[in-house]
């Protein structure tokens, strides 16, 4: 008799047992206590980090671009795939758009640039989706090729930072809520005024994605394809179309990351989002998004992204050099992996006793 095949009576106890249910719920959402504890540790040990409004602002700014990439990677992971090209797509779409606005067609309105940067990202993601979904190309190879191609293409286009760019193009990534015409004139309280628009946008995007994943057909279809491709197909879910949507969305979000970084920096450097691929993976994994697909919650990916940024910014603010960031990122990731592996074991034990 296998472990999956016990008497029904005790299964009944388990599935309807409130305490077990809550315990599993706690394990699923353990990122939040970790976020709070980390925040408290920083606040107590290094109060200067989180008491200065400008520090918090800096943290929020730098989390916006990465936030879009974590979201892109989370969607791909939930669908049972992954996307190595997100950072390169962000860099490439930002560079092409910057050259378009600055060099090729200098008097183009910035709003055209906003549409362009998202469209380029979406188009590259679309090609990823067609290759992986319809032609069955291995996602690792497909997105690795694009990771290399588009990073290389950026340096072919320009080896120097492209600036200046139209204010209206930089607005979404660089402006504060107080810069919005209506709110600025109303003279609202400073705290809200000094929140970057990009941050509100990212929070809104996570909320919208959470909604889609839980309440829209496509969200359930993504979770089903990620959980069990064959079962999803047998139920009549069009796997190819789902993957096309996932990778196209991932591309659009990567383009958005390019837009946000450009706005924050007021320029498009060739190295934009260059080192962001692995932090994006790390943010998703730390937030409990499973590498095997179909398991994880968007709100927790937000927590993972937040934790990662908090640690990074906190360390930079207290004088740990930027060079150490990769090292620390790796440590946090490793810790997260151990934690989630332990969680899986605890879950297994809970379910088998």
């Amino acid at each position: 008799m296998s472990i999956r095949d016990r008497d029904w009576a005790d299964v009944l106890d388990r599935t309807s047992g409130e305490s077990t249910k809550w315990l599993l719920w706690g394990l699923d959402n353990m990122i939040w206590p970790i976020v709070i504890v980390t925040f408290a540790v920083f606040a107590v040990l290094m109060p200067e980090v989180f008491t200065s409004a400008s520090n918090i602002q800096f943290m929020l700014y730098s989390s916006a671009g990465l936030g879009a990439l974590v979201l892109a990677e989370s969607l791909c992971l939930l669908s049972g795939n992954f996307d190595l090209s997100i950072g390169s797509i962000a860099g490439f779409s930002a560079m092409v758009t910057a050259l378009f606005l600055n060099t090729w067609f200098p008097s183009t309105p910035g709003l055209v640039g906003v549409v362009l940067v998202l469209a380029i990202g979406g188009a590259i993601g679309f090609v990823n989706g067609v290759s992986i979904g319809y032609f069955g190309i291995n996602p690792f190879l497909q997105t690795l090729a694009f990771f290399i191609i588009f990073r290389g293409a950026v340096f072919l286009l320009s080896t120097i930072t492209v600036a200046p760019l139209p204010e209206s193009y930089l607005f979404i990534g660089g402006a504060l809520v107080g810069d919005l015409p209506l709110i600025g004139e109303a003279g609202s309280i400073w705290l809200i005024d000094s929140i970057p628009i990009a941050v509100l946008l990212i929070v809104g995007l996570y909320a919208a994605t959470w909604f889609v994943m839980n309440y829209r057909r496509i969200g359930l279809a993504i979770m089903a394809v990620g959980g069990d491709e064959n079962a999803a197909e047998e139920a009549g879910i069009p796997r190819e179309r789902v993957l096309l949507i996932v990778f196209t969305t991932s591309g659009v979000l990567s383009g958005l990351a390019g837009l946000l970084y450009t706005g924050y920096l007021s320029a498009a450097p060739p190295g934009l989002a260059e080192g962001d691929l692995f932090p994006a993976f790390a943010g998703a994994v730390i937030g409990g998004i499973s590498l095997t697909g179909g398991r994880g919650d968007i709100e927790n990916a937000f927590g993972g992204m937040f934790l990662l940024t908090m640690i990074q910014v906190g360390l930079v603010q207290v004088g740990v050099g930027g060079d150490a960031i990769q090292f620390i990122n790796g440590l946090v990731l490793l810790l997260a992996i151990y934690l989630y592996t332990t969680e899986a074991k605890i879950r297994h034990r809970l379910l088998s006793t």
Partner: protein
Amino acid sequence: MSESGTTNLIEMRGIEKHFGRVVALNGVDLEVREGEIMGLLGDNGSGKSTLIKTLVGVHQPDAGEVFIRGEQVHISNPKEARKYGISTVYQDLALVDTLSVSANMFLARNPMKRYAGISVVDWETMNEQAEEIIRSRLNLEIDPTARVEFLSGGERQAVAIARSLVTDPDLVIMDEPTSALSADSARRVRDLIQTLNDEGITVLLITHNMDEVFALTDRVTILDSGDLVGTVDTDRVTKEDIVQMMVSGEMPASIQDTTGDTEAHA
């Protein structure tokens, strides 16, 4: 065992299917009467799965005709089969472990509602309907919000059966529903199949298990290497008769073949 009807719910005539040069089905007839439990028996490679897949539109037959309640039909995919009132519980169950019981039951068929002008998945109705099927119709205690990965083998089979009921079918086809289960769970699943049939649902049961054939079926159709051996009333034959039919591929003279009987009555 339930009272068998005398009209044919399903009638397949002279079904042929070739895969390249391999003859999978060589002019097979199958009749399933309204309200009965029909067993489909045969060794590996006898063509039972191919016959079922031809019926639900996974494969298209090279020759032969299919009738539902006397009317000729062409079923081109499983979705269409469901519209004709035919549900299938596959051997691999096709459940997504990481989703809840109700999400699995309504996979790709979620009830929707309008919320602020947007069409959203109606979880409340979904869980209620899942609960209704599981508790009221199948008389089981499974939490519709529990993830399938938390369930035992027997419960997973039960969820797959519950899912087949979502489209309110007349015929449920089950492919080896107890082959991967412990004796105890298998017994429960067999009870479940009986419950289903008592509710008036016709069942086509593919099985290897002789005890199951005698515990559940009204009649049994035996295939051998793509050929029809015959159809017999289960209570008129012995285990040995059936084994002999499977091994020799021929009807013993002492047993009456009831294939085509229904047509004669009608």
